[in-house]
């Protein structure tokens, strides 16, 4: 018995040793192959051999962006992969449609120094944060090297991508809040918010509609966009040019009061405070609403015969005016390169293609997105598909869109605005209190972030 025990012990020990050894052997080649692309970056020439091998196999880039209800981005990737066949192969990762959820996934990956995404589409409000945190690659040197004329891009978008004097994100397409209305119901487009409120109330129910107006009022990022439009239309602002908080003003109160009047009126859905973009555009393309406030993608979606019941029965206009002006919230998407990407040169090729003339043209024709590359507004193929791009008012409206606060702590500021405005809309606090609370909390957050 004693012997048996000893033999067992030895056997056990041996199996352990062998299995460990086997593990070690298996891991080695894997580790090597993983490290190679990274180490070729260094100056050492030891890895010259595998470097010679790489050109044969195309470099695989991972490109991520949010859900696209149109298929434009698939076409862009196909076109790029065809053009660079054998050299670069872009693979697409679809992210959630909620921009906040996207943001959280990206920052989690980037904060860990991950290289799972090479190229990522970012909302116009993120470049400052991503740049400050060191997630993205500054593009100035690359742009200089390839001689790209940045004057051909829209100024507002370039500003959104610029932080501390460097450009961190390439403008892809621009967005602004726009008003869409049913041409079979409305003859005269409302010019002011007061007119819109009257028209929405009076025309609700005509032609099978259930609502007069739909917007986005859930406690999420879209609420901030809608609020900024009302605030700016009545002459208020959230931050000034120096990044100081100036939200506490009678103008802001006035704007938000009009917003609340609409949200609590009887011509919006009774659950408007759960509405994000998909809920509102579904209501509109199902023919349920007379008016909608939405981004430019609504145009292509509404004219898509497979999904929409209102093809050819709607038109777009700038958002109504407040006391001061008509204000659209600057939205839109830009493209960054992950700073930890293993293939920055190839990633730049893709960014250049997608945000350049070829990519933006596909995005404009198939996705209905407004280009940031200005020459495309004179391109005949683009204008044939989206005649409104020739409309000077539309283009000027987008160019004059008001940005949301540009700040490296934007997520915190947005969180404060979402909560306080949502509370005001739900009737838990007065508009005046909401504005006062936002002012106090945002000032504290800015001071703390220094």
């Amino acid at each position, binding site marked *: 018995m004693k012997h048996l025990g000893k033999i067992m012990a030895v056997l056990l020990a041996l199996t352990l040793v062998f299995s460990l050894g086997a593990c070690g052997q298996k891991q080695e080649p894997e580790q090597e192959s993983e490290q190679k692309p990274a180490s070729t970056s260094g100056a050492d020439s030891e890895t010259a051999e595998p470097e010679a091998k790489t050109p044969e196999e195309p470099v695989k880039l991972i490109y991520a962006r949010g859900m696209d209800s149109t298929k434009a981005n698939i076409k862009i990737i196909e076109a790029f992969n065809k053009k660079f066949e054998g050299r670069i192969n872009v693979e697409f990762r679809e992210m959630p449609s909620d921009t906040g959820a996207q943001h959280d996934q990206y920052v989690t990956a980037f904060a860990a120094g991950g290289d799972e995404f090479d190229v990522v589409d970012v909302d116009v409000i993120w470049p400052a944060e991503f740049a400050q945190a060191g997630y993205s690659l500054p593009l100035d040197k690359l742009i200089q090297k390839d001689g790209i004329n940045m004057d051909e891009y829209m100024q507002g978008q370039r500003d959104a991508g610029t932080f501390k004097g460097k450009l961190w994100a390439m403008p892809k397409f621009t967005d602004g809040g726009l008003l869409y209305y049913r041409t079979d119901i409305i003859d005269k487009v409302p010019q002011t918010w007061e007119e819109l409120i009257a028209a929405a109330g009076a025309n609700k129910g005509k032609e099978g509609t259930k609502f007069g107006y739909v917007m986005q009022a859930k406690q999420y990022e879209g609420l901030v966009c809608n609020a900024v439009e009302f605030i700016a239309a009545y002459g208020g602002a959230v931050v000034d040019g120096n990044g100081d908080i100036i939200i506490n003003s009678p103008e802001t109160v006035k704007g938000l009061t009009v917003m609340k009047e609409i949200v609590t009126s009887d011509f919006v859905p009774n659950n408007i405070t759960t509405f994000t973009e998909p809920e509102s555009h579904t209501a509109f393309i199902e023919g349920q609403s007379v008016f909608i406030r939405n981004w430019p993608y609504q145009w292509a979606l509404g004219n898509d015969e497979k999904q929409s019941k209102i093809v050819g029965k709607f038109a777009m206009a700038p958002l109504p005016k407040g006391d001061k002006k008509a204000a659209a919230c600057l939205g839109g998407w830009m493209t960054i390169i992950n700073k930890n990407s293993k293939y920055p040169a190839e990633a730049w090729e893709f960014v250049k293609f997608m945000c350049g003339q070829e990519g933006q043209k596909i995005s404009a024709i198939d996705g209905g997105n407004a280009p940031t590359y200005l020459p495309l507004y004179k391109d005949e193929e683009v204008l044939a598909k989206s005649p409104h791009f020739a409309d000077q008012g539309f283009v000027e409206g987008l160019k004059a869109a008001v940005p949301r606060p540009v700040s490296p702590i934007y997520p915190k500021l947005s969180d404060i605005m979402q909560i306080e405005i*949502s509370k005001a809309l739900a009737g838990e606090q007065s508009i005046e209190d909401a504005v006062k609370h936002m002012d106090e909390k945002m000032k504290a957050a800015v001071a703390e972030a220094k």
Partner: protein
Amino acid sequence: MKKLKMSESYAGYLMVLPAIVIICAVALWPVVRSFWYSMFDLRLNHPAKSAVYLSYKLDMEKYVDTRFYVEGTLKELKENTAGHKGVEAAAVEQQLGTLHNQLMQSEAIASRYEPVKQLLDDFKPVSDATLRYVDLSREKARLYLNTIAEVTERLQALSTAENDAADQAVELMEEFRLSIMQPNFIGFGNYRYYLEELKVHNGKPGRLGMALLNTFYFTISSVFLELVLGLAIALLINKSFRGRGLVRAAILVPWAIPTAVSALMWKFLYDGQTGVVAKFCDMIGLVENPGILLTTRMGSMLSIIFADVWKTTPYMALLLLAGLQTIPVQLYEVGQVDGATKLQRFFKITLPLLKPTILVALLFRTLDAFRVFDLVFVLTGGGPANATETISVYAYKTMFAQMNFGRGATLSIVVFICITLISIGYVKILGADVLKDQAE
């Protein structure tokens, strides 16, 4: 003989040692780690606070990169401004040059400078931490920060218009300032911040206080309802009837669906326009209009509680069923012979014998419910008006949306403290119960 006994007891300890090590590693270590992080001002999207720093460090990547831009901007400034201002620009350049030379005197910095520059010129990240970060002495760090502050002031005086060369240089100085990692240990600063959020201002609790209230409200109501319904279901499926196997299996279906999926399902059911449940509530006059379910404080909280009850009652029923099956049938027979009514048998036999099972089931469910996240996140995202924000949702937003890991870790510790208190409470009741049984 005695020696043998000693070695045997040592051997015994040796045998349980791995278990103790594993428990420490998987259970205690994360808590210790969270507590450690909660003592720091740790913000992953802040360049100088993205890790735990106990000493001053210089971020070579940032320093070298910024230096490239500073040189260009200062050159532009010198060329474009004449007279006094040009001289001042040259003086600033001189001052920064001196600072640079002082830094380069250190062997650690000088030896890293060129490799880092090389990597940056190739657009590669400096991913090697030992190459990227250099320890600085306190004096040197102070000297660096003071110089940058001085230069910033001088440049501000030179700036005449927004975004001119001097203004850009000022922004670059901010980059220089952030190249130094300062020790970010703040002791109980984060806890003081949240203590403030617990206090009641103008009759309303702060955000953390509200989140805790929401969490407790959700936990108590959902666990209570689940207990009552779960017990009823357990009693039912403990009886023998035709098709009992099928019913037992069917009852588990809600529990088998992933929470995120069932939350989405309930979102559609509660929808004010198309939701079946919303329509039904409206028809029987429970609510004024179908939209109320997800748009009001009361409605959304009750909706979440109901969805949770639907999902986890089967789990409760399963646990209680297991307890019911351990009660000997003879007891009921004796009761029947003695003439006890059904109600009496339930209260005198079933409940007392089921008590330990109920307490264990309650413990499991309370801890689970207290950490509720997925249901709330998918169904309401914490809204409307932050009425359904639970402590886990708050911690998620702080950590993963705002990347403030110091604060987020503090909230995790708050959750940990609450969970511990709840567990201790239950264990006290359970323990007393078991002891009493033994005494009898």
